[in-house]
């Protein structure tokens, strides 16, 4: 593996870790954060803070799972095990996590409409990940064929 590829991989791993830290910080500060947000936006009733908290904590679960899978996937790539069945499974899992987040945002958009934009983004991301997963599954076949060509 080239030095540059290694560096790029390290950058991605750092980004994944930073995202994980951001997720934890969001979960910890969510009650305070939404109180402040609702104060700023006077159109929202004060009790809607609980709805926001439910949305945040339910979305945190698929987000954490997806981050864990991303980390495992990157660890496998670092070991130069790229097109394997395990990685295809991780991508599939991430796609489902995005879809789950999309559904949570869809339900949340009933009390706060802007969540619908996040729902659309998450569902679209799930779709992109699905296509990448399909590419990985195909590449896995080609790799197997290549490995057994002597």
């Amino acid at each position, binding site marked *: 593996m080239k030095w540059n590829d290694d560096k790029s991989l390290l950058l991605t791993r750092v980004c994944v870790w930073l995202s994980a830290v951001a997720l934890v910080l969001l979960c910890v500060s969510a009650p305070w954060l939404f109180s402040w947000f609702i104060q700023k936006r006077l159109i929202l009733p004060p009790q809607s803070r609980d709805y926001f908290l439910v949305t945040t904590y339910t979305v945190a679960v698929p987000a954490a799972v997806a981050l864990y899978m991303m980390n495992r996937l990157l660890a496998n790539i670092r070991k130069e095990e790229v097109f394997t069945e395990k990685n295809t499974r991780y991508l599939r899992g991430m796609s489902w996590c995005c879809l789950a987040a999309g559904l949570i945002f869809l339900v949340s958009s009933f009390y706060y409409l802007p969540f619908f934009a996040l729902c659309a983004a998450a569902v679209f991301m799930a779709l992109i990940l699905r296509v990448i997963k399909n590419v990985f599954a195909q590449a896995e076949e080609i790799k*197997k*064929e290549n490995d*057994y*060509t*002597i």
Partner: protein
Amino acid sequence: MPIIVNLDVMMAKRKVSAGDLAKAIGITPANLSILKNGKAKAVRFTTLEALCRELNCQPGDILEYVPEEGSD
């Protein structure tokens, strides 16, 4: 698969060990083992050429076609 690899027979005839042959044709012993055990999906012409050169034989001595039962 209807193509049988008779590499082990040829190696026995020429009294060549797997390690020596792998080194002579420039592939890893693990890959030679895959080829010998019939697990390989394809053989490169360059590999076949090196095998024939080192074992002093023809491709037909290494590969054999056996029709599958039930096929015409």
